[in-house]
């Protein structure tokens, strides 16, 4: 079953007939796509090269500074880090900067950020909350100042990673639910329909990564992650974290997406049999599976709606991860596990078959 996708020309004709574009738009669109202007965005391989290079050289600079004894004087390290961030902002905002200077700017930003956070940690006597706050402030200030997709992607992730580390270390795991709710809200806001400002593109990518990453920790709180936490923080585990709040939040977020995307009033939607089926499935999943499964499904749906293969790929990767974790977290016998897997798979396959049948029927019943 393949939905009928019109050509760009046909779609423009339809939009013209609806009065949304004028008669010259075909020529303008063709000229724009032909000019190569549309292809000026930095390709993925180049972003990866620049990003990996920046992190590698950033850590090398930290080694140099460490060998020079800067970590014995954290105050000086912090000031140097601030200077490096300032240098990076100047270089990256300079339009005439060559490749070497820009690469040096990336490197300085990474090393400077780490130096600042270490200095803040020293001031806060190793308190992770202090470091998390420092990283959040740095991220908020540096995000608009550093015009680089890679850095703007990494800065929010770094802040959230520090907050998560604080939650894990201090036994503040319930805060993770609040974080997940905040991340869901940001995801829904950033991926609302309509063109996104270029400034927010890296933030959208970062949120799409940080939400499932946070939910991994929630789903495994007090379970498989226990040993890891004990090893990393030596912390007392405390009571196991219930993932129910995040499940409810995730199911609610998906329901809200369905309502928004349908473009129809919620009352109309509630009367539709397929919507009721989706709701039952969502609650079934929320009851049986980890909340991460719902998050991964959300990413898959957003990836399709946005026509973003990277987002879809992320959704598939996290879906596989969460299903695998689900399997390990099921505290039951192998035969029950196999029954659950085969039963869920059969339901999904039957659902696919039913959708195809419905589509074929509506196609044949369509008046010619």
């Amino acid at each position, binding site marked *: 079953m393949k939905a009928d*996708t*019109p050509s760009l020309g046909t779609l423009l004709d339809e939009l013209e007939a609806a009065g949304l574009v004028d008669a010259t738009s075909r020529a303008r669109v063709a000229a724009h796509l032909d000019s190569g202007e*549309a292809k000026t965005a930095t390709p993925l391989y180049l972003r990866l*090269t620049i990003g990996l290079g920046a992190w590698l050289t950033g850590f090398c600079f930290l080694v140099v500074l460490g060998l020079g004894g800067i970590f014995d004087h954290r105050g000086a390290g912090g000031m140097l880090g601030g200077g490096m961030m300032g240098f990076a902002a100047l270089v990256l905002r300079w339009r005439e900067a060559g490749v070497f200077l820009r690469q040096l700017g990336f490197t300085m930003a990474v090393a400077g950020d780490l130096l600042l956070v270490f200095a803040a940690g020293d001031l806060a006597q190793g308190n992770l909350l202090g470091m998390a706050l420092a990283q959040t402030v740095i991220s908020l200030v540096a995000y608009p100042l550093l015009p680089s997709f890679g850095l703007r992607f990494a800065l929010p992730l770094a802040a959230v990673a520090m907050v998560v580390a604080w939650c894990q270390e201090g036994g503040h795991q319930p805060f993770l639910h609040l974080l997940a709710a905040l991340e869901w809200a940001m995801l829904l806001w950033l991926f609302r329909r309509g063109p996104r400002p270029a400034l927010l593109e890296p933030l959208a990518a970062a949120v799409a990564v940080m939400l499932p990453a946070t939910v991994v920790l929630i789903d495994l709180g007090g379970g498989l992650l226990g040993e890891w936490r004990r090893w990393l923080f030596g912390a007392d585990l405390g009571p196991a974290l219930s993932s129910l709040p995040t499940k409810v939040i995730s199911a609610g977020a998906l329901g809200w997406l369905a309502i928004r995307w349908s473009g129809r009033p919620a009352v109309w939607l509630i009367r539709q049999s397929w919507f009721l089926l989706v709701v039952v499935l969502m609650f079934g999943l929320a009851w049986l599976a980890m909340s991460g499964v719902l998050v991964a499904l959300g990413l898959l749906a957003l990836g399709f709606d946005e026509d973003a293969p990277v987002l879809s790929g992320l959704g598939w990767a996290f879906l596989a991860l969460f299903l695998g974790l689900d399997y390990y977290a099921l505290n039951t016998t192998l035969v029950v596990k196999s029954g659950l897997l085969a039963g869920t798979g059969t339901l999904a396959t039957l659902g696919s078959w039913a959708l*195809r049948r419905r589509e074929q029927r509506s196609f044949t019943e369509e008046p010619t």
Partner: protein
Amino acid sequence: MASMNPLDAAARVRTLRALARAGVISPVAAEAGARRLRGDAAWRAWAARTLLVVGTPLVLAGILFFFAYNWSGLSRGAKLALTQAGLIGCVVAAAAQRADRLGARLGLLAAMVMVGVCLAVFGQAYQTGADAYELFLGWALLITGWVILADWTGAWLLWLGLWNTALVLYWNQVLSVGRAWADGWLFTILAVLNGVALAITELNQRRHESSPRRRWFPELLWAATLTAVTIPLFAVITGLSHDPPIPWFGLWLMGVVSGYVVYRVFIFDMPALALTCGSVAVIVAAALGRAMLPGGDVGIWLVYCLMLVGLVAALVGVLRWLGRPGGSEHPGQSS
């Protein structure tokens, strides 16, 4: 050749939004177009596809775990009969659908996986002390016909993965036992295997230029080939291996030069060129590190850091130069 008129290409949501961002069409028009592309039928098609892709492996995993649970209680005959029934079921499910449907392909892929399961069950039921490589070799040989008939990238990927695994196991379990053969030879064989597969794939794609080009598979094969020629030289440079460097340098040089020529002159492919340049950068960085760092003081480290920054900058500069508009003879082929 495919039509070069951009308006003849299938409309994409991301194209419409990019056009709106560039101010070529209004955001309202872009959203109306996006709604047209993401209508109820498109969502149903997406849901059906997603459910099928999720459901098939879950059913297979459920069946596998069911047998794992009851395994010890089953007789040899029952074990073999059950796995072969699963195999036949997958083939029947695949044959019941049109060959170009996703369901048929997934069914055949599942059948190919079931061949391996059958072989493993047979090996467990009648233990002969055979090496594990024989399982993978037999598996690869047995599914060859299906792979050729299916002519689907997923099937080719599984088949090549099996050959690579069989080769690595054969090397470790048979060839290198009691012999002082350098591991570099294993990587050479892997490079040849993946390189030949790559050459066939590229020739096949050139023969069918009118069909849509999916570059990820040849790019993956090139990554595997390039990794296989880079590892032996990297190991020698960093001191992980004490082999003479000349043969591995020759192998690596041959790999990167041929990759550059093929992907620059004959088939313009920027990600493949980026991988090639990345391999050069890794080797240069390793050689510089080996020459400068052991016993070096802070100053030497600083110089090395700056050289690394310069190296990455040079790499980015070269890639930008290679990928500049009009930088290839076949710009339409860039992936």
